[in-house]
């Protein structure tokens, strides 16, 4: 049961094959077993069991709230949850218990979902590995998969298994690990430059970043307000669409949500035919740093569309190469501003120093933030200084406009969706990952994802195949603004074609044999 998709388990709940409480308990027990993954910062066991009980009553009375009723979900620890500690994996917010729910959290609860806990991340979502939070790094469940281990046995150079675990990617690595290890059926991430899509790609999941303005940010502790969107991590595209259906829509508490009526719910038709589709391949995304495996899968995917009758076009997004620098300036500037509120007065950490206000601020912030956060605050403030504002911030805003226009031009040329890699390569071992600093890593890892955030477009990472090492590789589809449904429909068709294998974690879950019930084999393998 645990290995099933949200849609499948929802059907099982409706048919009474399993009760919400049983399901909740199975997930809780798996959360305990997989504690070493460090996916969760807080496990809200009591809350989840109580919600399960209520859900069970509803099912008994035939008053189910819908597809999400009784479904265990997890939420990244940068969404405010009423009465549940929300830390952003930072000393600054350790012990902070928000008095309100983020709109997306509230919507999940209103639909009957069970909140299993708050998931780990990079401090304030600043990172691409889920390695830089105060609660330690998240381990990628694929490190312990049969697929990966078997490949490693064949490799005589492989080192000690225990120290050679892989990162999840990030910053929503906890959410990705939680879904990937079957401890819940869907999780909320946040996506500012790729933080949902990147770990989805590394953990073999669907990672969806909705259009900016489609889903409320109220209660999401901001990284970059103008780019943040709540992201959705699931095991398949239909599941993402179900969750999106629950979350999307205008929120009076978020003035940047759009009021135009949107087709709801996001039911995805099964495309029988892609011959009317035009897929764009941005040539600028073919860069030397791209691993040959990813490049090859990317081109096979394009071939697949072409062979099924779709039009596949090479398109140009000419300002792509400026994107990451531009992102850096805008991101750090907003970070500098957003982090100003953490002064130790109203909430969160406060130092013991009370010589003066300024000394108290300085010590509080020094103790509360890690080097990454402090570094971004420093550079952001530099860019916002009166003497630098025109040369950095304003210029970056202009470049941002050019980048957004690149996408508009591509779509205006007749392209329906763009197909790109999500990441340069598959997940790397932690020890490998930390050889470079956070800034370098973020610049590398966000390379294919952050431009989408600057343009506000919807994008989804779809797991495609396993690499030679037995690790997942994802590809990204980018859609027109507010054409999220169309984007997911194409992604669903593609998902069906590639039949990505389910992670095999039997050793992890020896007494949860149910996972094997649902094992799928690759019918159309894109693997080399």
């Amino acid at each position: 049961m645990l290995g099933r998709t949200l849609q499948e388990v929802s059907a099982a709940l409706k048919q009474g094959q399993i009760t919400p409480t049983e399901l909740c308990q199975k997930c809780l027990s798996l959360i305990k077993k997989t504690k070493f993954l460090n996916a969760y910062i807080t496990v809200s066991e009591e809350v989840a069991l109580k919600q399960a009980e209520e859900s069970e009553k509803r099912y008994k009375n035939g008053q189910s709230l819908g597809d999400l009723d009784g479904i265990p979900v997890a939420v990244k620890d940068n969404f405010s949850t009423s009465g549940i500690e929300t830390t952003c994996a930072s000393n600054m917010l350790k012990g902070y218990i928000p008095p309100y729910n983020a709109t997306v959290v509230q919507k999940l609860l209103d639909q009957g979902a069970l909140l299993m806990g708050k998931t780990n991340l990079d401090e304030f979502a600043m990172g691409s590995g889920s390695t830089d939070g105060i609660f330690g790094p998240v381990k990628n469940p694929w490190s312990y998969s049969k697929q990966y281990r078997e490949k490693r046995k064949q490799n005589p150079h492989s080192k000690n298994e225990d120290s050679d675990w892989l990162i999840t990617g990030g910053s929503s690595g906890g959410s990705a690990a939680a879904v990937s290890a079957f401890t819940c059926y869907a999780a909320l991430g946040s996506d500012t430059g790729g933080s949902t899509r990147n770990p989805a790609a590394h953990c073999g999941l669907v990672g969806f970043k909705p259009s900016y303005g489609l889903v409320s940010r109220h209660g999401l502790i901001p990284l970059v307000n103008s780019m943040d969107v709540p992201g959705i991590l699931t095991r398949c595209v239909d599941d993402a669409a179900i969750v999106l259906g629950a979350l999307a829509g205008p929120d009076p508490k978020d003035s940047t949500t759009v009021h135009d009526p949107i087709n709801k719910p996001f039911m995805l038709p099964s495309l029988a035919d892609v011959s009317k589709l035009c897929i764009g391949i941005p040539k600028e995304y073919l860069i030397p740093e791209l691993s040959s495996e990813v490049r090859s899968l990317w081109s096979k995917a394009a071939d697949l569309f072409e062979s099924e009758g779709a039009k596949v076009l090479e398109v140009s997004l000419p300002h792509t190469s400026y994107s990451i620098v531009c992102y850096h300036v805008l991101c750090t500037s907003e970070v500098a501003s957003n982090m100003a509120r953490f002064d130790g007065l109203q909430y969160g950490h406060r130092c013991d120093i009370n010589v003066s206000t300024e000394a108290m601020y300085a010590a509080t912030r020094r103790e509360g933030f890690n080097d990454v956060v402090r570094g971004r605050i420093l550079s952001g403030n530099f860019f916002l200084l009166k003497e630098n504002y025109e040369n950095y911030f304003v210029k970056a805003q202009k470049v941002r406009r050019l980048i957004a226009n690149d996408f508009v031009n591509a779509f205006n040329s007749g392209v329906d969706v763009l197909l790109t890699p999500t990441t340069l390569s598959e997940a790397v071992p932690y020890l490998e990952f930390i050889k470079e600093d956070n800034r370098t890593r973020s610049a590398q890892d966000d390379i294919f994802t952050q431009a989408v955030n600057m343009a506000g477009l919807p994008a989804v990472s779809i797991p495609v195949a396993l690499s030679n090492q037995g690790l997942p590789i994802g590809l990204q589809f980018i859609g027109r603004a507010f054409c999220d449904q169309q984007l997911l429909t194409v992604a669903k068709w593609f998902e069906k074609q590639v039949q990505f294998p389910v992670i095999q974690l039997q050793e992890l879950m020896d007494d949860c044999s149910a996972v094997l019930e649902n094992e799928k084999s690759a019918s159309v393998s894109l693997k080399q």
Partner: protein
Amino acid sequence: MLRWVGRGRLWTFARVDGGSCHRREAPTGSTSNWIRGQSSVAQQPLCMTQKPRKGEHKWAAVVGLEIHAQISSNSKLFSGSQVRFSAPPNSLVSFFDASLPGTLPVLNRRCVEAAVMTGLALNCHINKKSLFDRKHYFYADLPAGYQITQQRLPIAVNGSLTYGVCAGKKQSQVIPKTVRIKQIQLEQDSGKSLHDDLRSQTLIDLNRAGVGLLEVVLEPDLSCGEEAATAVRELQLILQALGTSQANMAEGQLRVDANISVHHPGEPLGVRTEVKNLNSIRFLAKAIDYEIQRQINELENGGEILNETRSFHYQLGCTMSMRDKEGKQDYRFMPEPNLPPLVLYDATSLPAGADPQQVINIDQIRETLPELPSVTRERLVQQYGMLLEHSFTLLNEVGLLEFFQNVIKETRAEPKKVTSWVLNTFLGYLKQQNLAVSESPVTPSALAELLDLLDSRTISSAAAKQVFEELWKREGKTPGQIVSEKQLELMEDRGALEQLCHSMMEAHPQVVMDLKKGNPRAINKLIGLVRKATQSRADPAMIKEILEKKLSS
């Protein structure tokens, strides 16, 4: 209350004046020698600095104002918290006001309408698109670490404010003056810091944090304290007429900062200082005049003016350097990403089928503008034939115009009579006892009845004054009751009066002699004696007529 302890605090406490000086804030003629205006040429500064001594240049002062008016609204600019003065500390604080992470601003429609209304009343161009920015600085009562304001593209620009400055020998001539308005911007108010020096702690009250403010920036077209005070008073009246701000300075709903410099006319402007902490119109005038004089003295003694922030010390009557900022602050302005551009419409740009709840129509607001003070004054002059300066007085005293109009409504007396009684007698009593119109013991109806008695010649003016004095004692009697109790009716019995005149003439032969010798003024003495004998109940004109008749016979 949120509190934290800190010993060496470096902030100064912006005092909130609990006193009642706001009532007495009509500009008073300054006593300093340079402030009196000699020129009445419209665009020339009324107050040309000091009288130049021989061989010396004249100094001219340049004054610009930044005025913060708290918007009168039920809820705050970006949150649903209530706005109320003197509520228990931190009782009106939403999650957004406390800047809890993840909260977002939601613009209050009422505040936008108030800004548009104010902009229109001040002849501004209303920007159909305006933007919000973040202004960053660390301060304990600014929980987010930034204030949301409109730095780049404010909601209204390029307006003007016309006000009248009193001049002439008795300050009875009103000279119209105009100050240009650079812009009006919407922004958030901060919370309040209360410093407890004894315990070395600071208490933070966030009730005010996030209340909507209109920042009105005046161009430096003013040249002295009196001009500034009069301009601010006019703005205050306009805001109150519009209802966009209660503009009560004592409650901090209207706060003024003044930028002041002096120079020799024709030469570049001097270095300016900013004077803060001006919490009444009287102090505003005083502070500006003090600062101008200080700068002149400084420069004449070979000193230099520092570009600094100064605070007005109302007890000492002087400005003092605040020294609160070490070096210049860089506010690191940035667009507010959580608020889309504020778009306003007019009749021509309004999209068809737009939801009226979601759009603001400038033309519609223009139609609802109430009568502005300048129009009210003109109407008073036209309608009641009063002098312009009387209309100024009527508007300047809170509630006086309404009182006046209520009296007018209920009395048959001539408007001129009413004006005179309200402005001289009534206002005189109020001022003497330092009372507001609302605290007056005499109601408009009572005064109206009194004026009717006077008008119908039931009582004499002198008796009327007596009745008024009785009314002021608040004994609950009507003017009619007082008149009959005190027997103040005019003596109607001509025979009796003739008798009285006759006996008075007989009792004072010397005066009669004087008169007959050709001293016509001696008759006044007789009139006075007769009036006294009637307890002022007789009409002096009638007494005079009788006396003259008897003398000539």
